[in-house]
């Protein structure tokens, strides 16, 4: 298993680099060859990364999102998968270089830098938490992509306003498609966020008796992070309803999408910094003392923490 993981550690950044290169080639040249292969490469990369995560998850006996570097790799996978769903639905490939570029950087950093941080939450072995974490990751990734497409909309809008007919004008899809991609990402993000919040609520009470007394005492549906998440969900749902039923379109809608996302990030940062929350699952325990892990899993975990992916 470790051999396989070592292979994945080298292979994944290379595969992501190939995908990024293909999308970049497409963006700069609009050549039919990358157009034909970029989506296939992307799907292959996602499948390979899923296989990598499964292997690692089985080896560690937990969700492989325990450290910052692991989380970066998982984020890259979520970005690629979400982007591909949107791309296949809307058939617009020329924005792929941005998403795949970010995914490559995340995987490269995640796989290249070894870590000494042994902080792994024991809750990662719990399927409820794992499901919640995956859904949250996918939901916020989708909302991030919505922000990206809205930003591209505003850039192209500005170029058209200024009559600049350069590379972005030639390569970016139409304003309408960018808007649809942005809205499409929100359409994915909203139900995922809703499901993650529901799962989080269910899991929270289920886990109370297994938590430290101090943390269990903090469990509350009024936790600032949860509250902010519900506000975000409400905001994006309102935007979707406005788009669907009130005909909210165009520059104003996309300015709202960009501003909404930035406000969301700022609010999350503030809550993280200044409000106490039970949403802190990092363990301060050394790996050897973690409960719920087999000896071999602890050994492997220590090696993985040391060597990266």
């Amino acid at each position, binding site marked *: 298993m470790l051999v396989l993981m070592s292979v994945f550690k080298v292979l994944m950044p290379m595969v992501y680099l190939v995908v990024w290169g293909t999308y970049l080639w497409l963006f700069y040249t*609009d050549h039919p060859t990358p157009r034909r292969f970029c989506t296939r490469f992307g799907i292959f990369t996602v499948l390979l990364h899923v296989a990598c995560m499964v292997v690692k998850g089985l080896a560690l006996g937990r969700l492989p999102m325990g450290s910052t570097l692991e989380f970066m790799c998982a984020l890259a996978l979520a970005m690629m998968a979400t982007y591909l769903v949107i791309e296949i639905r809307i058939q617009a490939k020329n924005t792929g270089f941005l998403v795949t570029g970010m995914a490559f950087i995340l995987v490269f950093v995640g796989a290249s830098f070894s870590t000494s941080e042994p902080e792994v939450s024991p809750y990662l072995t719990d399927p409820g938490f794992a499901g919640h974490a995956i859904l949250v990751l996918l939901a916020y990734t989708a909302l991030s992509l919505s922000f990206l497409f809205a930003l591209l909309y505003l850039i*192209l809008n500005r170029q058209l306003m200024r009559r600049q007919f350069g590379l972005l004008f030639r390569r970016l*899809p139409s304003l309408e498609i960018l808007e649809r991609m942005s809205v499409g990402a929100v359409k994915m993000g909203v139900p995922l966020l809703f499901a993650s919040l529901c799962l989080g609520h269910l899991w929270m009470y289920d886990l109370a008796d297994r938590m430290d007394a101090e943390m269990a005492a903090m469990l509350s549906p009024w936790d600032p992070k949860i509250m902010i998440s519900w506000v975000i969900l409400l905001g994006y749902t309102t935007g979707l309803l406005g788009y669907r039923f009130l005909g909210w379109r165009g*520059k104003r809608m996309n300015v709202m999408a960009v501003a909404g996302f930035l406000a969301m990030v700022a609010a999350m940062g503030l809550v993280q910094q200044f409000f106490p929350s039970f949403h802190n699952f990092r363990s301060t325990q050394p790996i050897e003392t973690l409960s719920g892990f087999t000896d071999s899993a602890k050994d492997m975990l220590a090696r993985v923490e040391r060597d990266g992916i």
Partner: protein
Amino acid sequence: MIGPTSLHVWSINHKNAPTEVREKAHLDPDRATALMDALGGHVADKNHVPTVSETGCISVVPVSTCNRTEIYLEVVDGTDVDALLRKGLAEVGTDPDLFFSEHASVWTELDAVRHLYHVSSGLESMMLGEPQISAQLKDAYRLARRHHELGPGLLRAFQGAFRTGKRVRTETRISNGAVSVAFAAVELARKFFEKLCDHRAVLVGAGETGGLAARHFLQHNIGNLVVVNRSLENAENLAAILREEMKTGLGKKGLMNRGGLAAPMPDPDLKCGKISVQPWEQLTDALAEADVILSTTGATEPVILPEMVEAAVPRRKGKPLFLLDIAVPRDIHPDVAKISNVFTFGLDDLDGIIQGNIAARTGQVPHAQGIIEEELIEFQQWLDEIDIRPTVAEFKAYLEELKDKQVGFVRKKQSAEVAAAVDRSLQQFIKKVLGRSVSSLKNSQTRQERERDLETLKRIFAPDERE
């Protein structure tokens, strides 16, 4: 059987001849057919195998478009092609001197094929990379094939030209991007809207320029086209013409004649291309309901004013409004551009897009030339083998016959499996012997040596000799 042949092309085109010369040289389908008759490219045996006419001509393909008239000729080696063409042209009433003047270019053999490949790829076209020439070449090729059996050289050259043209258009971006004002307008509209079918365009003005722009939008599946004109009668006339063209498919032809790009006619199931008329007084209402405004009137003062657009914008629920002014003097007041979510473009902007696209197409020329050279290598290889192919086929037939006899003999004495194994083994043997023979023939030092080797092979293995 046809012996050694040679290919020739005479070309009068937009690069080397003015319009009046091109007009004189033009060959309509009737004249082209008469020329084929006159040159003698009509002789074929009962099996449709081309044979040589008394004049030495094997086949001829005249190609005539608004920008070029070219005559492709395949003749038996040693034929006086100049005299042949002069005689043929004189018979059909075209001045032969045109094709032998400074306004004509002449290529022979592989250069003639190279020129044909360039033409079919759009590299020789007035609008670099335009796709119409491919269809025009196919029409000329079909006309010639209906008239007579093409010789092997021209047949192969034209088939290669179609393949090359297709490769160039799919593997490069030489045909990408608008290079005409009307098509640039459509391209610009497509930067706003994903599918034009879901949108409404208003054509302000019912003149010729407006009609052309409207045709382009209709061909690219605009959902609704509303014609608004000071004279309602003119608007209704234009709408009626456009409706008729949509019904009969003449819109495409109309665009071709005007040098526009041919696009597929709208699919009737898409429910696009609805054409209607509104009176001039309802122009402000039309602005509120439309997504694309095409203004092409001959007015001396702006007809679309800021207050009209400002009144329309709040009714649009944030949707962008795309205004295109292709009139001189301008129809749209410059202050309209200052209104939020309203995009105005003029002829200068469209020209900027066209120049950018032409530069991008020009950048693709080396790639296209690379593809042409690849295809020419294949043509040359085919040419190298053309004289040895019949003899090698006879040799192969002889070896196959021997093999069948041997296998039949084995089958009588041994099991079917053994016979099959012997069959496979001998098949491999034949393949190797043939491969070596063809390679030796192709690598002959001189033409005489090659002819001598071929003659020897023919003498030994030809059917009559075997009998």
